[in-house]
């Protein structure tokens, strides 16, 4: 991991709305192909942070670099998975997965190959022609996640995508997102309130403080996969993160 090149650099990121300081001097790096989880209390400025990363709003100070260049929506591709399922209801599962590729005007061969790969990884072969109204919420969210990975984005942001799922479904989907990440080599920034989920998924967990938010701690999760939630090492790291949060 130490030798991996840096994909995303966030330098002294600060955001003020008038007198209200929301983000205070946030700096961190994400390596190429890394899976980073961010945990933080509700109302700590998480949405603002995400909006800055997707460049929907501009920072007051600081910069975001992708591959050493200022993040530019026209140049870099940043994908986003919202908490609520956001598949287009007028497109089938396969068409939804291909959506980003079509917008980027990829060749039809590339679109077909990439969508087949993602459909295969998601095991959605039987449901490729299903419309979202024919799917469960979890299946729709899987299609949305497939759509985000299909594009091989420079950075994939996931905003509590499993927030609405029950615990059994969460375990299944967490394994699936790891499979997609490993198969595509994407760089992922995953936001969650669930500390067990963060420990299960991440190679590194960033802990945000209360508002004005900054990075309170940076914890490496150097555990082999598939991880076991009952493994003493797993419990130790989860406890370490929990203790950090108790401090708030």
């Amino acid at each position, binding site marked *: 991991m130490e030798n991996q090149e840096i994909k995303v650099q966030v330098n002294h990121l600060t955001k003020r709305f008038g007198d209200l300081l929301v983000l205070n001097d946030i700096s961190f790096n994400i390596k190429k192909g890394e899976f980073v989880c961010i945990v933080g209390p509700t109302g700590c400025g998480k949405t603002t942070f995400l909006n800055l990363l*997707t460049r*929907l709003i501009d920072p007051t100070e600081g910069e975001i670099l992708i591959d050493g260049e200022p993040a530019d*929506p*026209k140049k870099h*591709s*940043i*994908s*986003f998975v*919202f908490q*609520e399922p*956001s598949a*287009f*209801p*007028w*497109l*089938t599962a396969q068409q939804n997965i291909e*959506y*980003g590729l*079509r*917008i*980027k005007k990829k060749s039809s061969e590339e679109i077909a190959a990439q969508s087949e790969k993602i459909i295969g990884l998601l095991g959605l072969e039987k449901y490729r022609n299903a*419309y*979202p*109204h024919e799917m469960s919420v979890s299946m729709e969210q899987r299609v949305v996640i497939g759509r985000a990975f299909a*594009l091989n984005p420079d950075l994939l942001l996931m905003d509590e995508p499993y927030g609405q799922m029950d615990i059994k479904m969460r375990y299944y989907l967490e394994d699936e997102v790891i499979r997609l990440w490993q198969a595509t080599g994407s760089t992922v920034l995953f936001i969650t309130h669930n500390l067990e989920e963060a420990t299960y998924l991440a190679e590194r967990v960033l802990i945000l403080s209360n508002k004005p938010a900054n990075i309170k701690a940076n914890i490496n999760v150097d555990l082999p996969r598939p991880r076991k939630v009952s493994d003493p090492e797993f419990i130790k790291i989860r406890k370490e993160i929990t203790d950090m949060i108790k401090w708030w």
Partner: protein
Amino acid sequence: MKKNQIKTRDMLLSALSILGLIAVWFLVSNSKPDFFPTPMATIERLIRLIEKPVMKISILGHVLASLKRVVLALIAAIILGVGIGLFMGWNKKVRAAINPILMALRPIPPIAWIPLIILLFGIGEFPKVLLVFIGAFFPIVMNTMSGVALVEDMYLKVGKIYKANTAQMLRHVVFPAAMPAILAGIKIAISSGWMVVVAAEMLSSKSGLGFLINRGRDSYDVALIMVAMILIGVVGALLSAVFTLIERKLCGWMSKE
């Protein structure tokens, strides 16, 4: 109750209500058959009309003449209505500029335009099509505008995240999301256009179902009026049914709640 049973029950109820209407017609017409022809007399008149066309145009020819006017006007209304509605829904400045004009023109019934249109364009084919266009345009433009303005923010955000340009956003997100509203507008436009074409033909025409009604009035042929009225109803219902099929085909993705 099973789905099939409900379907059979509904079909039976529909058939009963139509039979009921015919029974009422029968009863009412029997008291004054000279003023109000019976169902049998109307069917006889329809057979005579098939055997001996009016103005050397077959009954099908009259239906097609009316349909042609409606279809031409609808094509123009869909192109302009959807186009203008799309931009009005998408761009608040365009909406602010055009909406007051539409608001002022929309309440004017198409029939109120007839004198002005005759003065400007005479009594040929174009003024009739123009009148139908006026009847069809407003529901389409208003529904398209509302449909576009009400596209869920989530879909727009997804489009933005994938960096869709304006043309891609309109084509791949806004247009399909607004499609149900647009089709609902077109459906209203079809029935409105069909009503207007009959009115336009009643004023000055040598073909069409409205013309047949006029001919019936001039020659005191009430059965002919009834035949034309029934045909207007049947063709209007058929148009609506055909469009419902198209709507299902185009919006098969909508949940059937």
